[in-house]
């Protein structure tokens, strides 16, 4: 995953840092289609069942554990997934916040050119970050596979949603993305409740976009967005 990410960045993406955002989005979108079709040609279009390791199969009876009766059940694998993603999140946060490398990346997000003029080879660092991002996304995919059997088209299902989450959270803000992810996820579940749906039919279909609109109107740069990122 790291290697694919690095290769992608070196081969294609880096030539686009100076292009417009629209072109950056388009070229990566084109690449996504190409990769997707290559996967289809090799693995077919049908989802591929992937089971979690047997040792963590089944579900945890959280209710009993917390003394709330046996009504709250949650699959072990999802709990592991949750723990794991919190760890990754913590790792990424620490990396960005407490290392020099992270400092350079944060600075580079705001002002590539200036960081460059301070003698730092931003491009090379962005390559590494791109590779790491690919690793994180890849890990997410691997871990998610037992929950959602993967097929060649799975990327597209997440594309728009992740885009919305990042922007609603605030471009360039890790905390914002996490907060937006939690917020939208919880609201989605909330809107899926029968009581809510009978009040507002179809609310579960649009809640995410509705919230996105409201947030962007109230907070122009998303939940935790900063001035200057992606605004040139």
């Amino acid at each position: 995953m790291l290697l694919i990410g690095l290769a992608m960045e070196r081969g294609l993406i880096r030539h686009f840092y100076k292009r417009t955002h629209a072109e950056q989005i388009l070229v990566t979108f084109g690449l996504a289609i190409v990769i997707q079709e290559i996967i289809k040609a090799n693995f077919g279009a049908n989802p591929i069942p992937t089971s979690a390791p047997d040792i963590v199969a089944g579900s945890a009876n959280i209710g009993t554990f917390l003394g709330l009766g046996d009504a709250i059940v949650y699959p072990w694998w999802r709990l592991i997934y949750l723990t794991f993603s919190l760890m990754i999140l913590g790792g990424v946060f620490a990396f960005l916040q407490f290392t020099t490398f992270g400092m350079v990346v944060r600075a580079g997000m705001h002002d590539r050119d200036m960081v460059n003029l301070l003698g730092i080879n931003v491009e090379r660092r962005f390559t590494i970050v791109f590779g790491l991002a690919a690793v994180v996304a890849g890990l997410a995919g691997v871990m998610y596979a037992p929950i959602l059997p993967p097929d060649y088209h799975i990327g597209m299902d997440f594309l728009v949603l992740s885009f919305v989450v990042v922007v609603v959270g605030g471009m360039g803000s890790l905390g914002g993305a996490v907060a937006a992810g939690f917020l939208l996820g919880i609201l989605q579940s909330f809107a899926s409740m029968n009581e809510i749906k009978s009040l507002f039919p179809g609310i579960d279909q649009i809640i995410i976009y509705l919230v996105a609109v409201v947030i962007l109107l109230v907070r122009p740069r998303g939940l935790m967005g900063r001035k200057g990122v992606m605004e040139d």
Partner: protein
Amino acid sequence: MKQPKINRRDVLKGGAALGLAGAAPMFFTRNAYAASYLNDPGNAATVTLGFNVPQTGAYADEGADELRAYELAVQHINGEGDGGMLNTMQPSALKGNGILGKKVEYVTGDTQTKSDAARASAKRMIEKDGAVMITGGSSSGVAIAVQGLCQEAGVIFMAGLTHSNDTTGKDKRRNGFRHFFNGYMSGQALGPVLEKAYGKERNAYHLTADYTWGWTQEASIKASTENIGWKTNNTVKTPVGAGDFSQYITPVLNSGADTLILNHYGKDMINSLTQAVQFGLRDKNVNGNDFVIVVPLYSRLMAQGAGENVKGIFGSTNWHWSLPDEGSQAFVKSFGQAYGFPPSQAAHTCYVQALLYADACERAGTFMPCEVVGALEGHKFDGMGNGPTEYRAEDHQCFKDVLVVKGKENPSSQFDVLEVVEVTPRAQVEYAPDNEFFAGGDLGPCNNGSA
């Protein structure tokens, strides 16, 4: 191939356009070269059929399998290969020399499982490639959209995989025919089997894909399970392509229901079933009943995608390759020889549809749609894998036995994931044309199109 020709008509049209601009079309409408019907092959040595299947998107594998079946059907109709079901079909007017002595050619297109794209692709086949019949598809929305188009254009539509009641219910058309079974039939077939396996005292919770097919299936299954005494605890609509169904599954745990019915198809079904199993639903015991899951519409491809999780789960299907009858075996054999694995039910229904169409033309003695409609309406046949079958004249729905299947406990191969539990006799799934689930439509007159 004859397609990139510039014929005189086009040249005239171009020239006219140059000179007359907007007024031009008045002179060169399609009626200028009148013939008896649209895309009449006339004296040509070949006849063109259009195979419109999903090649991209979630159902691409199903579409690929349909295309394989069509290619096989064309070979068999043209007298190549081992003849497959041509040898078992009864009655059969097919001679293995094409249709009416014309060699069958075909064109293909991608429906993308989108109504617009499917119609555009079908229109290309009709307008450019001169197809006299369009067939294929892997979802009801597309089937209904293309069926409407074929009606308006004036060609025959032989539906592929479409399970919604509406296809031969409120959206039925004179030029369209469906061999595949439907949601109502699934319900009728499943009811008794479920009663036998799980008893009369059940409390069912439906998760339903929130679009027309899901709704018609939910209504059908609800009616038939309530008929055997089950209670319906709740029916919940889920957005198509929800991916994560956990927020819909967790409420099931505390609902008091002991049966989950998943009115999902394709990826939705794979995901909701996988996740329901992960949430331990099948390990639960509610009101003294072991919790069970039912997937009313099964497809082998989907079952493969859900892997282990389908074991022991009941559902219905139009056809399965393990059927022992002569017709099925002949088809499985030639498909297996050509491609190395057994065909799916989508492949089967498409193959059969192609043969039925060819046979109807042969019997009608022409490709003229209205004559072919006449030959298909009320046509009774056998030897095609589903026992004695009838294309009912009133709604163009095939009536035949329905299979109730169960996820196999010990699959012997990746294709061997379902076992046939019961072959529900045709009488049990039959219904009156004006049944409440199918009311509201009108076949209307047939359309030969204007050449």
